């Protein structure tokens, strides 16, 4: 399950989609809109995607994961459009026979998604705005 949607996200459908009889663990990640970023107060975010490239890049990340860890299934959904503080922008779930693979693969998935999947967010603050795109490090 790899998708880009305007609809609100929840993690449960992804967890259900990846769980297999062989799965002993499902690791999940939900990225949510934070009120403060780099010391500024965010009013809302606007996400935009190059959908025709973004979904194949998600599949490519899943292929990379399968080359590194023994996992059962991988699901990634990114939301686009207008998002308010506290809303989920991205949901990822990875199932595996054992927890270490599931946890490592899930962490890898979100890091790679931010590096190579062409999705941008415009942060709109009280006193300005800025686009943030793939390959941008965020350590704050």
């Amino acid at each position, binding site marked *: 399950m790899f998708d880009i949607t305007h609809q609100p996200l929840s993690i449960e459908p992804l967890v259900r989609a990846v769980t297999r009889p062989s799965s002993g663990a499902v690791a999940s990640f939900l990225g949510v809109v934070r009120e403060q970023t780099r010391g500024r107060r965010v009013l809302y975010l606007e996400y935009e995607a*190059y959908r025709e*490239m973004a979904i194949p890049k998600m599949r490519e990340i899943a292929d990379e994961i399968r080359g590194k860890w023994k996992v059962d299934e991988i699901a990634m959904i990114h939301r686009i459009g207008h998002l308010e503080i506290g809303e989920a922008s991205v949901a990822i779930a990875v199932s595996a026979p054992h927890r270490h693979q599931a946890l490592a693969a899930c962490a890898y998935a979100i890091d790679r998604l931010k590096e190579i999947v062409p999705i941008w967010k415009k942060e709109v603050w009280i*006193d*300005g705005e*800025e*686009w943030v795109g*793939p390959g941008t490090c965020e350590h704050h």
Partner: protein
Amino acid sequence: MKVRVRCFATAREIVGTGELVIDLPEGSTLTQLFDQIQGQFPRLQGLAGSLLFSVNREYAPSDRRLVAEDEVALIPPVSGGTHV
């Protein structure tokens, strides 16, 4: 030859549309394409150092030669902020 150019985020806002069709000499590279677009939209200069390109939905180096009907995208990693 004609190529489609998809523009996103800051690049889309500068160009004023999500898609351009650009007429280029045969054998042009991504750099030559970008120079031509920048001639039309000088504010793209600010992105020149950080912009990535894709050709037919794969990242591509700026010396990549284009062929007719290629779909190029301008992929800005990050913009300069606009503070009001």
